């Protein structure tokens, strides 16, 4: 009796065990199928990002964005980018049509243009939970503050620097210029071989002329309110000076300037933003040429340098963004994240963010030419003025250059050209 009970129990337990095994197998199989059936597509938050720059910046920014997306799989970043030339116009189209990106690289001057009252961009103070604002000093934050609202954060500080092909100067027995007269003396020597002392683009040329103007007349061309302070006579003298620079081989005609002419030794030097050091200094040095860094030229006795400092570029968030938190996460990544800083290095200038500086210091930041240029800048920072946005006004510069060309090519007199410039500039400024 006992044996048969044990036997029955044994048989029942075997059947139960088998049942459980089969159920488990079925269950696992069903789960696989269920999981697949339940894999519905999750909607990602779309954040649009825009920037301008050169090839390197495009590539590393896209690479950085890919990494950001891999770290934040619920966020999808779409981007728009282009070269600086024309980007201002592009931004104007976006801003005026309310089609701007959620996170935007902006120029310092655009704060005035699009956010006089501080309402043109999102107040980043409200997103302090997502952006580590402690990486920026109050002074640095002040650059991006309009009407008490933190509209943008600076990526780096920037000013102009001159780089010269030292080998070429040595070849002609020339030394680095300190004054404007030095530049003309160099032009005499180099001009004999149809070479130029300096070559630069339209915007840099305007900054160069503004500096000369302010040194000569000891006043700002545009005051803090953006008002145009130059007289017609002063403008006449300025464009005559501009023409003499071209005629005497101090400055290569703007339309003929090509980076390759500087690289190949047809032009001895250039003026650029410190943040473009890799383009104009490192690139030339990489070809085996000795490159010298030089301070801006001065007019003996001048009381004002006429040279400006500005936040190189800034990151801002659109006032109308639908996803401020996600946009802030991206902005914080672009400014403070170790991965992004490592990709970016000093391409946009030596960063302002303390977190970024800490990362770059570990990588030997102090050895770079850009860092050395920034150190120089810090030494004479007191001589520099905080930039006045109109100095970078694209329409104004375009107008100046276009009218000056009329005089340079002898189509009109200097008086007529100065008159046109004077009226045109006032017209451009009145439209703002």
């Amino acid at each position: 009796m006992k044996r048969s009970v044990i036997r029955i129990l044994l048989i029942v337990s075997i059947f139960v065990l088998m049942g459980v095994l089969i159920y488990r197998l079925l269950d696992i199989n069903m789960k696989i199928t269920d999981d697949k059936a339940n894999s519905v597509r999750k909607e990602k938050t779309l954040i649009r990002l825009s920037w301008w720059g050169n090839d390197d910046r495009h590539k590393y920014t896209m690479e950085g964005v890919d990494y950001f997306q891999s770290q934040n799989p619920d966020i999808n970043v779409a981007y728009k980018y282009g070269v600086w030339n024309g980007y201002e116009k592009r931004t104007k189209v976006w801003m005026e049509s309310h089609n701007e990106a959620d996170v935007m690289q902006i120029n310092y001057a655009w704060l005035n243009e699009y956010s006089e009252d501080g309402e043109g961009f999102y107040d980043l103070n409200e997103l302090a939970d997502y952006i580590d604002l402690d990486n920026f000093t109050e002074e640095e934050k002040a650059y991006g503050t309009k009407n008490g609202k933190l509209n943008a954060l600076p990526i780096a500080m920037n000013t102009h620097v001159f780089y010269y092909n030292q080998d070429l100067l040595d070849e002609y027995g020339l030394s680095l210029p300190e004054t404007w007269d030095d530049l003309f003396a160099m032009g005499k020597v180099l001009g004999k071989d149809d070479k130029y002392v300096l070559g630069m683009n339209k915007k840099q040329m305007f900054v160069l002329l503004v500096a000369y103007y302010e040194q000569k007349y000891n006043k700002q061309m545009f005051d803090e309110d953006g008002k145009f302070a130059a007289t017609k006579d002063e403008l006449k003298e300025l464009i005559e000076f501009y023409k003499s620079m071209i005629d005497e081989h101090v400055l290569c005609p703007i339309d003929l300037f090509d980076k390759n002419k500087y690289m190949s030794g047809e032009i001895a030097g250039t003026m650029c933003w410190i943040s473009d050091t890799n383009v104009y200094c490192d690139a030339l040095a990489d070809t085996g040429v000795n490159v010298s860094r030089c301070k801006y030229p001065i007019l003996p006795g001048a009381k004002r340098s006429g040279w400006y400092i500005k936040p190189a570029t800034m990151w801002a968030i659109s006032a109308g963004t639908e996803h401020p938190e996600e946009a802030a996460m991206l902005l914080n990544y672009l400014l403070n994240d170790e991965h992004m800083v490592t990709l970016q290095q000093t391409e946009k200038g030596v960063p302002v963010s303390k977190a970024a500086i800490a990362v770059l210091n570990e990588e030997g930041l102090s050895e770079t030419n850009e860092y050395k240029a920034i150190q120089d800048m810090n030494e004479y920072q007191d001589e520099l003025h905080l930039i006045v946005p109109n100095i970078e006004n694209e329409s104004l510069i375009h107008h100046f250059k276009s009218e000056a060309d009329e005089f340079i090519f002898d189509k009109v007199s200097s008086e007529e050209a100065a008159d046109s410039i004077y009226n045109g500039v006032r017209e451009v400024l009145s439209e703002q």
Partner: protein
Amino acid sequence: MAGRRRGFERSDKRFRLFQYEILIVFAILIVVVTVFIDFAILKRTGRAMKEKVSDLIAANSRQLELNINSYLERMETVPTLLFSDETYYLYDETDERMDEYDKVKNEETISNRIVDIGLMENYVDFGIVYSDDHKLGWISHGTQDLFVNDESMYDAFSAYIVNSKKEDGWCYGINDNSDRIYYIKRLNPNAILVSSIYTIELSSVFVYPEQLDEMTVRLINEDNEIIFSSDSSEIGNILPDDIYNSIKDGVAEGNMSSGIITDDYLINTNSCYNGWRVVCSVPTKIILEENESLKSFTIGVSSIMALLFLLVGQLVIMRIAKPMDGMVSSLQNKAEIDRLSGVMNKVAFQEMVESELKKETPDEFGVFIMIDMDNFKQINDRLGHMYGDQVIIRMGKLLRKLHNNQTIIGRIGGDEFALYTGCNDISKEEIESVVTEEMEQVMSAFAEEYEYEREQCDLSISAGVYIKETEDSDFEDFYKKADKALYTSKKNGKACYTFFGKEDKDEA
């Protein structure tokens, strides 16, 4: 009794072995049949699945082709906006009749136009290159750096203008660059427009359903260089051989679209209007992944079923076959056992010995003993047949008592018994003394058991012993030889045993 038990045990063992064999064969059959049927079904569904996925890839590939065509057309449309005014496209920088001022003014106008229309897309380059390599608009440093050692950018790009009607062309891999694709359009005999986009931009064009996330999507040019791939590590490489070999025939025949199913991949390729191709591929094993898991599931379930069958079979044997075993054994006993003496009858004895002989190796020994009761007739005559039967019964008991399971015992005549013992653990030298000792035991045990009968009727036993030699293995032969020795014992006055000797051998 021992011989009978031994016989039963052997046949029972055989029968059980047979039962297990049947069980295992059926269990294997269950696994094989289940797996075969399931695999056949899975193969069929696998084929159907491949065809369905292939259709899906084809539809997807076609959609990507349309996407890329649309994208390329858009990229081509923007440059055509330079043809809105002659100033933009007819300007020839190399024309020496123009003075410097006119050049500056014209170029300013054209640059402004480039800025305006170039804003419409994410162009890396968007500019005009003249035959003397003078450039207008955006020609990036990246592109300029591709042309070193005085190589003419104008000449290099002009070579890619292959469409004679539209005077344009697409190119990729210029001087080993793999991060951008260029669109070139001729503006006038001395000017071409150069525009480019990063290949990474194509990721927004190559968007495909998430269900096909294992699919690799590629855009290749005429030289099979991978312009874009969803697997970014492939960009700039040549299309893998295994995929190229699968599509090359279709490409050679000029097919706009073709789908190929190989053992390794499901592939679909579509041709874009500029000659580039979209190639989508999915490893077959990924499509059939679920089928593979179903296969292992099938094997698992059928194995459990087989195990279950074995257990149930064992249970059936325990519950049903055992009583039957008893019945069969009982019938078998009846057929094989001499009912009077309780040892095997002659037929069963002979069969058992013959079967034993077959198993023995030639060098093994065997001892065959024949025992005959002397004067048994007098027992029947003087003490009656009933008593005679009792004598036989007691003789059977005595022999079983004296011998272990290794000895086969049989009653081969009225008062005649035979014994066979196989010996493999005794040497040839020892065997005769061992047998002698055993025979002495038998003789004395008999004398003790049948003392009364000996006194009354002079009952005794005579025996003939034959020790098997290596060369013979025939029962009949043994029987004759032992019988001969027995005859010698009888002849020598009965109540004794005799070994089959050499002289007997000669006689035999």
